[in-house]
């Protein structure tokens, strides 16, 4: 892999790759949006009202609000992850769409960047859908601050898109992705404060949690929902950019080894 590692050459040529995915998505836009929305919404409203009615305030807010803020980050993570795992894998391995693109004057850097930006687009859609629900139910503290959630959502999409592309690059089949969900995504959902505050965890797990990207995402999103400026914004932004950026660079090397050797 080291042999294939080098700085990516970014260029606007990624746009046709993005556009290809967009045009395909457009054909099935309505069911796709409903799918994006339905699953996180059910969890959020079910647990929010069901569990929430049993709980006093959680972290200084109603449980529904607490959960809504977590769900923005969580559903964004899922949207980006599913896109670069299952959908990108179909295009790369099953349909051989990337092979066809690489025969044109495109590089793998362009293809992966197109896929990554597409994953960010899908995340935006997913995160915005939850944000719309937050607006609709009046779960926010300050409307103008909630607008800052939009770039946060894009950042979270970038982070998990980049990380997921690494899994895509090394996967022999769809089944392989289950490891990533079981070993990375699901633990993160439980350790990063989606359903309950991280402060409820034993100290060791809290220390682990502080390093996980979803924690940084939620530390940005939750204050913005409640109407406060997040603490340590720069740290969280850098952490999310680093996870996504490193993911992209490593994924590029691994995919190059896989396809162009």
């Amino acid at each position, binding site marked *: 892999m080291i042999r294939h590692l080098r700085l990516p050459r970014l260029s606007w*040529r990624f746009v*046709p790759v993005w556009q290809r995915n967009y045009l395909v998505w457009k054909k099935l836009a309505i069911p796709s949006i409903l799918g994006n929305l339905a699953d996180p919404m059910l969890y959020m409203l079910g647990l929010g009202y069901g569990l929430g009615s049993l709980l006093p305030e959680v972290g200084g807010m109603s449980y529904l609000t607490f959960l809504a803020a977590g769900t923005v980050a969580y559903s964004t993570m899922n949207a980006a992850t599913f896109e670069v795992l299952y959908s990108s894998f179909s295009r790369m391995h099953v*349909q051989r769409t990337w092979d066809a693109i690489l*025969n*044109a*004057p495109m590089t793998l850097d362009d293809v992966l960047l197109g896929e990554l930006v597409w994953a960010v687009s899908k995340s935006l859609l997913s995160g915005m859908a939850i944000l719309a629900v937050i607006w609709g139910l009046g779960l926010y503290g300050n409307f103008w601050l909630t607008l800052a959630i939009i770039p946060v959502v894009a950042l979270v999409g970038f982070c998990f898109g980049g990380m997921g592309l690494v899994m895509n690059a090394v996967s022999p089949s769809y089944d392989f992705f289950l490891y990533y969900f079981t070993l990375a995504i699901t633990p993160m959902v439980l350790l990063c404060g989606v359903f309950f505050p991280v402060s409820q965890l034993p100290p060791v797990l809290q220390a682990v949690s502080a390093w996980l990207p979803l924690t940084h995402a939620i530390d940005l999103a939750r204050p913005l929902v409640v109407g406060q400026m997040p603490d340590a914004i720069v740290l969280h932004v850098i952490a999310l950019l680093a996870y996504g950026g490193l993911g992209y660079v490593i994924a590029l090397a691994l995919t190059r080894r896989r396809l162009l*050797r």
Partner: protein
Amino acid sequence: MLKVSGLTKRYGNAEVVRGLDLHVQRGECFGLLGPNGAGKTTTLRLLLGLIEPDAGSIELAGIPVPAQAREARMKVGVVPQMDNLDPDFSVRENLIAYGRYFGMGRAAIAARVPELLDFAGLASKADAQIAQLSGGMKRRLTLARALVHDPDILFLDEPTTGLDPQARHLIWQGLRRLINAGKTIVLTTHFMDEAERLADRLAILDHGRVVVEGAPRALIESHIEPAVVEVYGEGLPDWTRERAGAVCQRFETVGETLFCYTGDAERVIDALKQSPALRYLHRPSNLEDVFLKLTGRDLRD
């Protein structure tokens, strides 16, 4: 149009391409033949700059590869061995999406699509989904897709593998039109008749090397006797032992069949008539005979 010298590619200890030299003139159809694993597809990938050679130089349409592979690929259309049409798009959308990868604008692609559909004989299928197309239609669409940016040179990797005879003839017709229009074509195949039909010149590759190179007719004339008599049936071993050496210029036994190569087929046939238990097939020698002579009859997997 294409100049390759000393091209070498290694994977670990295995040298897949070993010092390949090729020259293809503008407007020429050049065949790259060889058994499975001879290095044909690897060579095409090297020529496109998709993989980096360990040694040697490539100049494609006057552009050095892989140094400026992107620029070179602007001039090349590729028909890959395995269909990789976009199954999420219709026939027309496939052409449009592919044009965009070459940086073509909406208007330029729209102007090009009707003639491509026409070329592929798919005008009536423009809005069909890929899954609804037959194998031959898919190949024709792949060929049309490779032409979307009007390339000077075309790379075809086994373009008719898996097609029925009707579909193959349609592809050949299309390729002849392109040759007549002055396109340069590099074609890999292991159908000898395809190479004989289309290629002005060809190279037979084996173990990553050019074994022989030339025009199909000239190769047949210089490497093999003019006629072949294939003999089989009961009593073949005896006949082989007693007569074959005397009447054949050269012969070999493969399984239950004797291949007798000769300039004087009459003499062989006269001799065979005295052994009525034997059956035979008399035919002019062809490129396949050259191929098998030079690359051997062993299976390559």
